[in-house]
């Protein structure tokens, strides 16, 4: 198929590559400016406490200190919904999370900030801020926070049920329900039923670059921000709202970004740096410490789930039920909605009921993390599917294939699937040599699992200007976390019929490019790539007009094919035509904006081999294969990279990672030594198999590949552990103590 393309499907070196292997690329903390002050944030030592008073006088008197601010320094704008490009959040929640007012809702909640000429002086001064707290009891898990008599985080919060506020004062921000068919009848028909409870821990995205932002409240009244973010327009809009100034008064210049995975969508530092700059008249830079990142930014929810699935002896799933309670952290938004929409999405099940609860707890306000909500949910579903397959004596892939969702399958949340690649992913797993390879030893097991993520579309903008040497400059607004400058430029190059090296992509600031939503939701290669495709079409259209002018014919008579314009014996290359722009009408600039429909969801699967040491409980991953439907792989190396990275984040989530909270709500493992992410030594090579079921909704068939790959590994490893040592794990992480406990419980 891909032979019809000359650029799509190739593996060029990325345009920003040289800067990134030589240390020249400027990331958030690398930004420098004359007169820069350093900001440091004071964070609550308590998980839940009323702030009685804040005395900043000693800190203000510390040598070198230029300003000290608290939430009282933010304007008191009335609450409203702020559109952050991927959904809306109340201003009061954004502002309250940036600097706490009245109450600290989690350990690490920002309460005040200092700016000083030296970072060390700011660090010393921040310790001199005297905050008087009334410590309150805290609620740390969803089940605890849902109990009668639990400490209430937000006294004014009432549980919402689809647009309706109930009169229940509770930590449950929202309850939703999806119903399809009749589960009573469905379970009555089932001949095998499995039901289990599951718990997963809070985990962090774990990007290596801590959050960093510099702000200058300029003398013309504009606020200039340089920061590491997944969405410069999100930062612009959220910062403007918190500061209560128009969005056009804020200009955000995105630096290079050192990983995000969803965690660099919210704003934390920018409004604080801006207020400190307003008070001092100087630019202020704030860089988080690693502990700040763990304690003060949004991890992804821990959860409690109870899931039940029933099937007939012939392997037909007849009914499924899920109860999902997700920890939102301090403010609502636990990603339980997507969890509810994905929990059974891989299967065609006629009778389903799903209840979801968004529960606030005294932990950091959660943020998105790669397919947010879906990995937790799939951990439950996919381990039960494995158990059912075993009960029915069926091969776990055959059992999945028998029930797999296809085009036209109705999901529990209502809509029918359009063209999807669930079956093709399962077939590729079954056919993979890994699936039939011998395991070769005791205490070894193989597990499989699959997962789904919707992906999103959202708004993107792009312009392409033609240079006189036949190269083009491509301006876009999607911050580049994994090579998207190149995957976007490749789509433009394909349309223009020129090598991708002759497209120079640049990610511009919010003054210089049209609105572009976050780099997230696996949307960048899909949506910004689509904008580049359209902008390139616009260039081709204009170039045809120029050729027509040269030949004194109608533009409609000009054909464009692989970078050559021709008509009736005339012919000119893109490059030669580019030299004739001045005399045929002036520069050519193509432009496009999109808010596309046609988003194609992606299915992924994994095959995992493990060996479990029954003496220590340690699990070693022996072999791991990731399979994913990319729709169309624009740059296969970067698709593989997404699959490998997502898989390994899933492996870490499954085996090691957790926020280890003490009863007072302090994370006791807030360093990269104790929050144990996988190292090179913990892993084998991650094999990949790209499946291509083109998305009919995108000009090149792109689906977006950033997220679905993290969904399967949690259950895939749980299943592998079961087949190795015979214990079903229903709690994450499956670290050595948990495995040993499970082995002892079995005896």
């Amino acid at each position: 198929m891909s032979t019809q393309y000359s650029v799509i499907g190739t593996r060029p070196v990325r345009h920003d590559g040289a800067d990134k292997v030589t240390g020249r690329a400027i990331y958030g903390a690398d930004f420098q400016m004359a007169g820069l002050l350093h900001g440091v944030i004071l964070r609550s030592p308590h998980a839940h406490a009323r702030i009685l008073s804040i005395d900043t006088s000693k800190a203000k008197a510390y040598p070198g200190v230029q300003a000290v601010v608290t939430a009282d320094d933010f304007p008191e704008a009335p609450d409203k919904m702020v559109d952050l490009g991927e959904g809306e959040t109340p201003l009061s929640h954004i502002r309250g999370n940036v600097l706490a007012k009245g109450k600290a809702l989690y350990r690490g909640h920002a309460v005040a900030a200092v700016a000083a000429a030296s970072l060390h002086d700011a660090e010393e001064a921040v310790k001199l801020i005297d905050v008087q707290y009334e410590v309150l009891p805290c609620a740390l898990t969803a089940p605890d926070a849902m109990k009668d008599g639990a400490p209430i985080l937000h006294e004014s919060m009432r549980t919402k049920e689809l647009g309706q506020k109930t009169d229940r004062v509770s930590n449950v921000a929202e309850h939703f329900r999806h119903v399809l068919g009749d589960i009573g009848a469905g379970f009555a028909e089932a001949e095998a039923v499995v039901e289990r409870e599951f718990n997963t821990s809070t985990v962090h995205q774990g990007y290596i670059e801590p959050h960093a932002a510099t702000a200058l409240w300029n003398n013309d009244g504009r606020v200039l921000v340089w920061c590491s973010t997944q969405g410069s327009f999100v930062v612009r809009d959220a910062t403007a709202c918190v500061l209560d100034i128009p969005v056009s008064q804020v200009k955000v210049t995105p630096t290079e970004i050192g990983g995000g995975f969803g965690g660099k969508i919210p704003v934390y530092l920018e409004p604080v740096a801006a207020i400190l700059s307003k008070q001092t008249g100087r630019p202020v830079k704030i860089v988080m410490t690693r502990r700040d990142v763990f304690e003060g930014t949004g991890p992804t929810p821990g959860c409690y789930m109870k899931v039940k699935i029933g099937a007939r002896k012939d392997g037909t799933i007849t009914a499924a039920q899920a109860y999902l309670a997700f920890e939102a952290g301090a403010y609502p938004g636990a990603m339980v909605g997507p969890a509810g929409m994905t929990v059974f999405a891989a299967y065609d099940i006629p009778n389903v009921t799903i209840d979801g609860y968004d529960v606030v707890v005294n932990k950091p306000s959660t943020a998105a993390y790669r397919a947010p909500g879906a990995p937790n949910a799939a951990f439950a579903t996919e381990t039960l599917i494995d158990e059912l397959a075993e009960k029915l004596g069926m091969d776990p892939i055959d059992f999945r294939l028998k029930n797999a969702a296809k085009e036209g399958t109705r999901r529990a949340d209502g809509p029918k699937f359009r063209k999807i690649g669930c079956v093709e992913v399962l077939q590729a797993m079954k056919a993979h040599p890994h699936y039939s390879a011998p395991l070769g030893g005791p205490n070894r097991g193989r597990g499989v699992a699959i997962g789904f993520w919707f992906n999103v579309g959202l708004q993107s903008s792009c312009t392409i200007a033609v240079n006189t040497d036949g190269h083009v400059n491509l301006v876009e607004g999607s911050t580049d976390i994994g090579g998207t400058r190149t995957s976007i430029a490749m789509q433009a190059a394909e349309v223009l019929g020129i090598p991708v090296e002759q497209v120079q992509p640049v990610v511009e600031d919010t003054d210089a490019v049209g609105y572009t939503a976050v780099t997230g939701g696996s949307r960048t290669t899909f949506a910004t790539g689509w904008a580049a495709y359209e902008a390139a079409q616009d260039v081709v259209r204009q170039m045809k007009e120029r050729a027509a002018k040269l030949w004194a014919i109608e533009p409609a008579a000009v054909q464009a094919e692989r970078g050559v314009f021709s008509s009736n014996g005339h012919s000119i290359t893109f490059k030669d035509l580019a030299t004739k722009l001045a005399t045929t009408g002036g520069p050519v600039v193509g432009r496009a904006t999109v808010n596309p429909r046609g988003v194609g969801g992606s299915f992924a699967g994994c095959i995992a081999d493990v060996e479990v040491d029954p003496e220590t409980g340690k699990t070693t991953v022996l072999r791991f294969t990731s399979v994913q439907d990319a729709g169309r792989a624009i740059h296969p190396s970067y698709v593989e990279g997404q699959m490998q990275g997502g898989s390994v984040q899933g492996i870490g989530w499954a085996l090691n990672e957790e926020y280890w909270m003490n009863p007072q709500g302090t994370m006791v493992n807030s360093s990269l030594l104790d929050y144990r992410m996988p190292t090179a030594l913990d892993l084998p090579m991650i094999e990949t198999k790209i499946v291509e079921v083109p998305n009919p909704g995108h000009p090149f068939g792109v689906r977006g590949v950033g997220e679905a790959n993290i969904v399967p590994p949690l259950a895939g490893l749980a299943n592998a552990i079961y087949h190795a040592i015979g214990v079903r794990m229903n709690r994450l992480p499956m670290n050595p103590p948990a495995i040993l406990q499970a082995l002892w419980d079995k005896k």
Partner: protein
Amino acid sequence: MATVFIPALLQGLTGGRSKLEVAGATVGEVVENLDRAWPGIADRLVEDGRLRTNISVAVDGEVSPMGLLEPVAAGSEVHFVAAISGG
């Protein structure tokens, strides 16, 4: 007429009906007509002239970027679903 699927938590307003045939050329018109027949339903879906925060509409299986302005054809399926974001 389009087929509107009523979310489980709104079926109290539609006498337990989970599916309704409703006229309308856009999602906005469909919601208006729905509310005429089953008062109160628009209030649960719409706020300040647009779909409530974190609710999206899917027409024929595709989440619409246009919300209430999304065209609806005869025989279309209309679902109100949770808005999806991503990492």
